[in-house]
């Protein structure tokens, strides 16, 4: 039954008992971690350092020159970068809020185990299983003006369609719609797990006290789900910055820059402008943004976890 004792968080609870073994254990731990560490250093930390170095340098006809923060001032002076930043913010709010609300709604509706709910859960989760790049290729044809699946069904209802990803006014929102469809099922999974952890008595007591559905959600379910919510929020915000497959396939940031996002801007600077300096500076900006975001959210999660215990 040794497996069970490993799974138990005992060492944290009684640290003093394990102290004499700590050094020994550490060496072994590092030895076991070594293969992953090598790759982590080679493919994560080293590139991060390289990006930082490149962000402070500029290629000038074959020579690399130290330019200080010039790349950063250059990107903030670039209207395309500011446009990408604004687009990314709109995209973040417009995808994360509805995705989380939908995911929570799905999770609460489908939390009881039954074969119908199991089937519905699988259906809602299905889009997560398809790679974003494949989804985007499919949506290219769903979004086609006139003959696409979307316009086809709208026409059956007597509604006029639109040029979903070709009209600069609505292209970003079409991308938002796709992202919500793709991600809501994934977030639902975390909420389902979170709901399982709520003691049944909590809800029953509230019911006996005569709490309405809304009150039970507001005062019982949501407080218990606080941790899941914070975690899903971090994941969702990370996705907003790190996923651009659909931009590549569907719009390439267009039409008229209306769907350009930060990561795609980085790609454009590196590939289309041959400007590694500006690309690195933009990468650093999004990296700092992401790290700050995760730090704040994780901090809050820890604090609330402490407050609960």
């Amino acid at each position, binding site marked *: 039954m040794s497996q069970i004792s490993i799974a138990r968080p005992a060492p944290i609870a009684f640290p003093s008992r394990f102290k004499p073994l700590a050094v020994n254990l550490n060496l072994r731990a590092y030895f076991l971690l070594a293969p992953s560490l090598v790759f982590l250093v080679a493919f994560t930390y080293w590139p991060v350092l390289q990006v930082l170095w490149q962000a402070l340098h500029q290629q000038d006809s074959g020579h690399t020159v130290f330019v200080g923060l010039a790349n950063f001032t250059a990107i903030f002076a670039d209207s395309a970068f500011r446009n990408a930043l604004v687009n990314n913010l709109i995209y973040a709010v417009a995808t994360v809020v509805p995705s989380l609300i939908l995911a929570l709604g799905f999770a609460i509706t489908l939390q009881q185990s039954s074969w119908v709910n199991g089937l519905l859960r699988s259906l809602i989760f299905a889009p997560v299983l398809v790679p974003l790049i494949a989804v985007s290729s499919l949506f290219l044809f769903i979004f086609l003006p*006139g003959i696409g699946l979307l316009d086809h069904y709208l026409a059956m209802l007597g509604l006029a369609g639109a040029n979903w990803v070709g*009209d600069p006014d609505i292209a970003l929102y079409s991308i938002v719609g796709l992202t919500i469809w793709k991600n809501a099922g994934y977030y639902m999974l975390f909420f389902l797990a979170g709901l399982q952890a709520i003691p049944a008595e909590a809800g029953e007591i509230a019911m006996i006290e005569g709490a309405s559905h809304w009150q039970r959600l507001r005062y019982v379910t949501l407080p218990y789900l606080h941790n899941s919510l914070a975690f899903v929020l971090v994941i969702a915000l990370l996705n907003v910055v790190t996923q651009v497959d659909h931009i590549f396939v569907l719009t390439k940031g267009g039409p*008229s820059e209306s769907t350009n996002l930060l990561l795609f801007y980085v790609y454009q600077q590196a590939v289309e402008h041959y400007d590694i300096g500006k690309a690195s500076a933009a990468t650093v900006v999004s990296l700092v943004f992401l790290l700050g975001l995760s730090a704040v959210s994780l901090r809050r999660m820890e604090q609330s976890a402490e407050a609960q215990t």
Partner: protein
Amino acid sequence: MSNRLLSMSALAVAACLTTFGAAQAATNIEMFFPVPVDGQLARDMGTLVKKFNDTHPDIVVTPVFTGSYDDTLIKTNAATKAGKPPAAVIMSANFLTDLVIEGQIQPFDDLIKASGKTDDEFMGQFFKALHPNAVINGNVYGVPFQNSTPLLYYNKEQFKEAGLDPEHPPKTWQELIVAAQKLTKRDGERVTRWGITMPSSYDYCGWLLEALTMSNGGRWFNEDYGGEVYYNAPSTLGAVTFWSDLANKFKVHPTGEQKAPGVSTAFLAGQTAMMVLSTGSLTHVRKNAKFPFGVAFVPSNVRNAVPIGGASLVQPKGLDAEKRKAGWTLITWLTAPEQSGWWSRATGYFAPNKGAYALPDMKEFLAKNPEAKIALEQLEYAKPWFATYKTLAVRKAIEDQMQAVLSGKVEPKQAVETAQKNADEIMRPYVERTALKLPAMN
């Protein structure tokens, strides 16, 4: 986890390749190649390279499929930076000027001289329109491999139904509007069939606008100097306005940005009666059209003229002499008449080597496929493809404006002025260190 697995397997493969390479006496080289359509064409390339390896025992070529033209550029740059440049790359022909300015590719002149030819003699085997995108500052940097021009495709059945002569497609902009008006079908407010559709997603947008501008007598860019474009010239303004009128005034062309796959799908589904698309799509349309279709020159306003498109073979800097020579052997073999013709028939691109059309296989093919012949005839009016310093960014400067015009958000006049201003801004560093770098005397 999967990332780590991937990198591990990549390392393992790299290790295998290195040991394998050391054991061989022959020169091992890599060729990076993109294909416009995945699957079949990548296999066709495999067939071609296998034939080369079988007939050249002293060289072993490994073909590396590198995705799209853009991806191929990225991967070539990455490999060159890592000190492992491929010995041959099929590179989008409009990247060459840029690559020369950035110092990433090397000229072939010494290799051509060693083969006992002059540059002119060597380039003489290719169609004249292809030279400016391959010969830069008097040096041969690229050898044309697969090329295209824009072409007007039309649905003959719908022409008949609309009372138009299917054997006489529109030749001028005037005739194009008249035909498109007759072909457009409306169901109340909703359009069920468009007269004409032209793709306006990035890349296609700039290429077709260049075609319209050239058909309007314009030059679009300075083909001898990478720091000038003529976006606010009357010929360009006329072209932007014409495209805008088709959509916004005559309403025979859908508004907003149109994507290339959407345009060909709409044409094949009978929802647009005409379209302008690359000759490279001929094979696809021929295989999938369930109706008789015709092709014609891009209609003109002032003169017949279209830009070329496609790709050339190039060599990055940093190759050792032996690999460079092996790469050159591969490049000359791939662009020789027989291979050039074979690849043309497989893809729908035209063969850049004029000699290909003298071979019996090609003559027979053209007799069976008259559309391919029209694409070839248009070549006589073809001009160079847009290529400047930071080509993609400069092209995007006008594409963003054109897309806004097609969505009715900007007027053509304002669009070309903004595009010119933005393009000048992008090219400024280059202009300042070239055309505006003047001798200073004290």
